[in-house]
């Protein structure tokens, strides 16, 4: 179903399926786990404890584990997983995604156990997850925006601009109407307007889509900063003081230990994000709209020959994408009750673009990639809070380095929609 599905059985059955034995992955797993065992387990002094906390309804659960022993056990589990994957490779069996996932979780915990060992502050697990989700929100919206338009064949480099425009309009409208919700409704309009420019130039005037996208980012930064310096500066109370969206805990669900408060004590924007991810995941791959959108992005001429209006489909999807990004832009202002500030999206649109590619143009992939980035970013924050001897600038690099490792090590070659970036002119 997903675009990167395994090859169909037709041919595999025909030939003799004898996958080449590749030990690259197992060796990498093993090497990293061994280094981790040395660094986190064997070398550090013994006798220290690592404390963790997590929220449960009404209380804070705190527990401690012996650092050295725990780290050693975790690293050994990772080594075991490496051995498992080695065995799987030897017998030519495919391992599921669970293996790298569990492996990564285990090693991250080993790292945390080591990093927090002996610290006065416990490691707040709930808070770690909460912040990861928080930082991932705009990335998820941005990545989904890119996905919707790129799946239909229009490259959307303008995500950053769409986020920024959404943030701007949401703040201004929310302030004027004194309603965060009205601001939230305005945000997608701003994003869609940016998309409208994108489609006018990319489809009507057949300008290279990347050029348009790059330039639109500059344009939106220019316009919003200009208006901020001129109009908003003088009237910040009347134009740029948005209300905050209220937090709406979902009864029962929000009381689940650890993940309840993380997932279900959120604003409507985050719930919308869940909805959008799930709905898109279903619709992109299972609905008429999704099928047509993907057809137009993969092989527009084929779509045309079955009566699908290629450019119309592209226009609507790109506008929809812009609207989704615009909605994500509301995160920066009304969702958190913050006033608009110059360039306040701080390059998140580009990270979202990376998340979309890393997630292979699928909604759940985009979600996973955004969460990975959010987690890496927040891990850096949380470790900073607990106290680390590493300079802040180096800590701040973490999420970017993690992303490079993810794209180089785990993902490798990804396949973009085939007709992406190519104007459809009959």
């Amino acid at each position: 179903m997903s675009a990167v599905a395994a090859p169909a059985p037709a041919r595999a059955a025909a030939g003799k399926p004898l996958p080449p034995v590749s030990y690259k992955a197992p060796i990498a797993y093993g090497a990293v786990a061994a280094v981790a065992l040395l660094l986190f387990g064997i070398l550090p002094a013994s006798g220290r404890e690592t404390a963790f906390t997590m929220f449960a309804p009404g209380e804070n659960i705190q527990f401690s584990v012996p650092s050295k022993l725990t780290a050693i056990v975790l690293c050994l589990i990772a080594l075991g997983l490496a051995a498992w994957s080695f065995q799987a490779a030897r017998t030519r069996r495919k391992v599921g995604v669970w293996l790298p996932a569990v492996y990564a979780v285990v090693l991250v915990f080993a790292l945390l156990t080591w990093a927090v060992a002996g610290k006065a502050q416990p490691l707040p697990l709930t808070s770690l997850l909460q912040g990861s989700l928080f930082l991932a929100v705009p990335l998820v919206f941005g990545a989904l925006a890119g996905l919707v338009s790129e799946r239909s064949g229009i490259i959307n480099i303008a995500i950053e601009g769409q986020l920024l425009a959404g943030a701007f309009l949401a703040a201004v409208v929310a302030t004027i109407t004194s309603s965060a919700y009205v601001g939230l409704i305005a945000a997608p309009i701003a994003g869609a307007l940016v998309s409208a420019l994108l489609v006018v130039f990319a489809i009507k005037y057949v300008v290279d889509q990347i050029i348009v996208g790059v330039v639109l980012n500059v344009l939106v930064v220019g316009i919003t900063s200009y208006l901020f310096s001129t109009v908003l500066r003088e009237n910040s109370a009347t134009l740029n003081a948005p209300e905050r969206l209220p937090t709406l805990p979902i009864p029962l669900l929000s009381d689940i230990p650890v993940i309840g408060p993380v997932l279900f004590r959120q604003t409507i924007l985050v719930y919308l994000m869940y909805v959008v991810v799930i709905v898109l995941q279903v619709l992109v791959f299972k609905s008429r709209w999704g099928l047509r959108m993907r057809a137009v992005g993969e092989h527009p001429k084929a779509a045309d020959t079955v009566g699908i209006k290629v450019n119309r489909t592209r226009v609507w999807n790109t506008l929809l994408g812009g609207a989704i990004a615009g909605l994500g832009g509301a995160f920066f202002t009304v969702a958190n009750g913050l006033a608009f500030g110059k360039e306040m999206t701080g390059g998140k649109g580009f990270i979202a673009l990376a998340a979309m590619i890393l997630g292979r143009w699928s909604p759940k992939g985009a979600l996973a990639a955004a969460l990975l980035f959010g987690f890496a970013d927040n891990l850096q924050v949380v470790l900073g809070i607990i106290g680390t001897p590493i300079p802040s600038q180096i800590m701040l690099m973490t999420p970017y380095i993690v992303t490079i490792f993810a794209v180089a090590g785990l993902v490798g070659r990804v396949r973009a929609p085939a007709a992406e970036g190519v104007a459809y002119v009959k």
Partner: protein
Amino acid sequence: GSAPEESDDTAGGGEAGSDFKACMVSDSGGFEDKSFNQSGAEGLDRAAEELGIEEVKVESTAETDFTPNIDSLVQQDCNLIIGVGFLLEDPIQAAAEANPDVEFALIDSAFTDENFEPVTLDNAKPLLFNTQEAAYLAGYVAAGTSTTGTVATFGGIQLPSVSIFMDGFVDGVAKYNEDNGADVQVLGWDKEAQTGSFTGDFENQTNGQNLATGFIDQGADVIMPVAGPVGLGAAAAAQEAGDVSIVGVDADWFETSPDYSSIILTSVMKEIGQAVYDTVKEASAGSFSSEPYVGTLENEGIGIAPFHDFDSVVTDEVKTAVEDLKAQIVSGDLVVESISQN
């Protein structure tokens, strides 16, 4: 609306006060940074209004803009050019040397020669602030007010003008602990190692919000963000959390951020505006001196803001202790140090 009388048009604008022109170059934060650029700009605005002089303000978007901005102000025949921020040190110094008939002022940095030894120029005045002294008091108050025994501070980017606040804050908390046998923790800054929490920029407020939430989750109930607009993110997080208060920086946040006035414990004020105003006033009166101005608790160039809504929360012991410490600092009995001090 109705049209103004025709004759009004010509008379509008330029008050025929003085033809003194005072100009200002921001650093890359711009004049709405809720921080020193903004304070500086406000000082200049006040001078323009009250002294009837002409003002020109130009923003820089990056370090590369300083020299051209200063140059265009020189071309505009500015009499006094003020650079906001230590990053303008070299450009202001070069301009001062090249334009002996123009007066300059530089906020947050003194001038140095090629061996990095201090020098004085005839036509350039450094405006310096012993910010750590005020931050020290704020740290003391924060520690004395915290009910959880944990307070926090963080910065935008690790720069001396940022970490000087954090140094003073940490020392103030330590002083409180020492005086009261308490064990209030400071998260976010290790003065010894000079490492701590930073959001990475001065733009993305949500990063400040997230970081502050992290502090709050670790039990912090007083936070001092030294990150310009990103600090507002922290204020939003504090407001959301409930019983968490914020120590503002640069200006009195109770006044400048009315949305968050109810959670502002106090602010570490750096009276850049006043210093700018005074400098303009002197210069326009023809009594410019290149003598460095150093804002201290003594001359009230720095200080902590009133407690406003927290006046009843801050105990009398703390208030007395703060007055006492202030007196000691003014008298020189107590020296608050920061390696970021100019």
